[in-house]
């Protein structure tokens, strides 16, 4: 295994974790729909308990995504988190309140009542995917930062990464394309949430409403997603010369990436087809409840391809709009060969981890959530 292989391998794993995170944000998307999809308390409790049994997995994937990024590309961790301070802090605020909202909401002794926690779930459901989608969009749109490792020695300010404006990340939200991708992720997670409920909650009333709601979420998602993909294919990208490390602007860089890495293009098409298949079949068929799986797999594949396009093929995955040469690439921001190799061996555990998650998921979801269960179960959220 060469150093270059390990760097590419770890970008693949980071992309995979990011893709899984987007899929698992069906929890967030679902939470935004609980109080409109469920028309009475029993229905709302069924939906709440449905996402409530998976929220830890989403949370864990977010934490692992952060940890794996830290281990494999510490310069990104340092530059983006330390620079886009407010963007990341907003993401964290929404996730903190979400974590306790399930457990505390309906418990006796809850000093503030259920309503604030319901709002927390909804706010996290909207702003979590929006801001995470926006953060991912900065991989393509760039951010306003400067990196100078010599700062560690040059006297005035030993901090090597700094943000070139005072907004510390909020400037990303002023870029319309960041918002386009952000809102595309919001609608995608709502679609996933609906499909997850369809599969996990055994209630005909809820299921019939899901089919209708699905249309309303799919149309804006498709418009936003197609608009962003077209924009991405046409926009300039930052490329680097692997020999010298010099970064330059290349027109239609991501389109070139897709053509040169043609298997990714095939995968992208497969991913999109799976997403559309799952959604359309769920809308058309009155008995089909497994749409979450083709759409989920399609989501993972599509997001994976987009993230691979951001970093592979000598592309700067975190372009700097303030200083071209400060842009982060897989090559200049990764951990040492020794660390990447060590972590490679650790990553061999991932199939085992995925295996027991699938096993436990299947064991738990074999019995769907029913009105009777939420009325009887003492461990109810």
């Amino acid at each position, binding site marked *: 295994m060469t150093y270059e292989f390990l760097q590419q391998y770890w970008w693949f794993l980071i992309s995979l974790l990011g893709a899984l995170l987007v899929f698992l944000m069906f929890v967030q998307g679902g939470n935004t729909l609980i109080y409109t999809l469920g028309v009475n308390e029993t229905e709302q409790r069924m939906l709440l308990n449905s996402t409530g049994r998976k929220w830890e997995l989403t*949370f864990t994937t977010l934490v692992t995504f952060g940890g794996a990024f830290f281990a494999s590309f510490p*310069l990104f*961790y*340092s530059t983006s988190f330390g620079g886009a301070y407010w963007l990341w802090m907003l993401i964290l605020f929404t996730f*903190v309140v979400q974590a306790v909202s399930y457990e505390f909401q309906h418990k006796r002794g809850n000093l503030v009542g259920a309503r604030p926690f319901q709002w927390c779930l909804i706010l996290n459901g909207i702003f979590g995917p929006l801001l995470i989608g926006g953060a991912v969009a900065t991989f393509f749109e760039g951010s306003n930062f400067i990196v100078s490792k010599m700062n*560690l020695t040059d006297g005035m300010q030993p901090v090597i990464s700094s943000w070139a404006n005072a907004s510390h990340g909020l400037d990303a939200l002023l870029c319309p394309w960041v918002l386009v991708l952000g809102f595309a992720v919001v609608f995608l997670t709502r679609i996933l949430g609906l499909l997850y409920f369809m599969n996990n909650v055994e209630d005909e009333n809820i299921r019939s409403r899901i089919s209708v709601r699905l249309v309303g979420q799919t149309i804006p998602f498709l418009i936003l997603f197609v608009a962003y993909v077209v924009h991405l294919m046409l926009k300039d990208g930052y490329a680097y010369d692997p020999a010298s490390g010099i970064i330059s602007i290349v027109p239609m860089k991501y389109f070139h990436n897709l053509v040169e890495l043609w298997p990714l293009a095939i995968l992208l098409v497969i991913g999109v087809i799976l997403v559309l298949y799952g959604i359309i079949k769920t809308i058309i068929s009155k008995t089909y409840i497994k749409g979450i799986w083709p759409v989920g797999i399609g989501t993972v594949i599509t997001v994976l391809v987009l993230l691979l396009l951001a970093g592979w093929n000598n592309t700067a995955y975190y372009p700097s709009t303030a200083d071209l040469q400060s842009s982060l690439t897989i090559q200049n921001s990764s951990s040492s060969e020794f660390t990447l190799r060590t972590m490679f061996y650790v990553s061999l*555990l991932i199939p085992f981890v995925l295996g027991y998650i699938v096993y436990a998921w299947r064991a*738990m979801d074999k019995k769907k959530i029913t009105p009777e269960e939420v009325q009887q179960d003492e*461990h109810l959220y």
Partner: protein
Amino acid sequence: MNLLTIDPQAIDWARAQFALTAIYHWLFVPLTLGLAVIMGIMETCYYRTGRQFWRTAARFWQRLFGINFAMGVATGLILEFEFGTNWSNYSWFVGDIFGAPLAIEGIVAFFMESTFVAVMYFGWDKVSRGFHLASTWLTGLGATISAWWILVANAWMQNPVGCEFNPNTVRNEMVSFLDVALSPFAVDKFCHTITSAWIIGAVFVVGVSAWYLLKKREDVRELALESMKIGAIVGLCASVLAAITGDESAYRVAKVQPMKLAAMEALYNGGEDVSLTGIAAVNPFSQPDYENEKEAPLRIAVPNGLSILATRTLHGYVPGVNNILNGYTRPDGTVEPSAEEKMERGRMAISALAAYRKAKTEGNEAEAAAQVKVLQDNFKYFGYGYIKDKSELVPYIPINFWAFRVMVGFGCLFILFFAIICYMVWKKQGIYAPLHIQEKFTGWKAKGMNWLLILAIILIPCAYIASESGWLVAEFGRQPWTIQDMLPVGASVSDISSGAVATTFFIFLFLFTAMLCVEINIMLKQIKKGPEL
């Protein structure tokens, strides 16, 4: 050369925010770790005997575990990301080493915990008894493995091993994973922290059970007695182990962080045959005049105690604050340089790094090689180059001194307390005496039982105070270092204004405090309600 002009307030706020998050996090995690063992034992009893009582008991403690668990997860997420948001320089400078344990923690531990905790809560009637029991233990195991990796990371900051500085990438890089993952410092830290968490779980279970007995709740009497029995046995084992591992931890601290030990002991001037301070009048509100005072006033000490603790020999040499600042010669003849000399050599290392990078850019390989040599010769003191005044090297002594005594004092009390309850269990005395005998208790016997039960309840907050005191000793004691001798806090922070960090500090303070208040109230209501019978 003026190397550090970062706004000191920004550093203080970054420290405050991290401390706030860590302290809150550490309110919830120990109970998770401790309860996991106790409810695991109870569910194992249910699995083996099939007796419904054990199922009820396990589910009751699991419900309290669940209320507490979410808060630990929420604060843990913030903690991980704060390394990047508030300590970005640190994240680059040592991310090559420090990131790995965090990633492994996520992959190996968090997924195990989050997958099986859902089965544990909701799977009672969905999966087999065996699978459910496995899920309960795997939830606890996941939490424990998670603690292992985060403590490996923390231990590495206190005792950086298994790494080398790379002047080309301007960072430290890992050269031995095993040295990092299995450093004796990490092993001691893990054992001490985990056993202290078990104590909290045990004190909590015993305290809640004592409340039921004090309230004479007949509906939960058996649950209270059995829970107290299991809690006391776990607690006694854990508190004895915590004492042993604590002693070993102090020995390690003496070896690699002598300033921390000196601060813990308020030892201004060391030497041979140093006594161990039991108590002394150290003003908790101001840094003592360690330069001019011979020793802390009104000191009561155990002769030669500190020499034994720090060196494992009766007459061992232990340096005090002034020895460390002024330099000293060990009994074996090796010389520890003064703080001034270390600061000078640190500045030489930093200058050599700058010169090396310049020579490399200009293609001057001979000059680059010469500067690398200077850098390597002085790198041991690299972090001292950022220190402006040697007084910065002395942590705040009162916090270290008193927090250490609070931790050790309560630790000893816990051993005694759990031993008394275990004795009662063993001898079937006191609350464990048959009911018809207890009914005849009058006078001191009846009062004695109540007194013990009240003490059990009082000890719940005490266990938390002891645990947080341990955190204070570990983290305040290593100031000003983020990474011992390598990087001070001032050179670790992000380029964020103090106002921004202060704002997020208060937002977190509000969120965490509000959530804690809600949690405590829910917990109290749940305890009052008792198990579903």
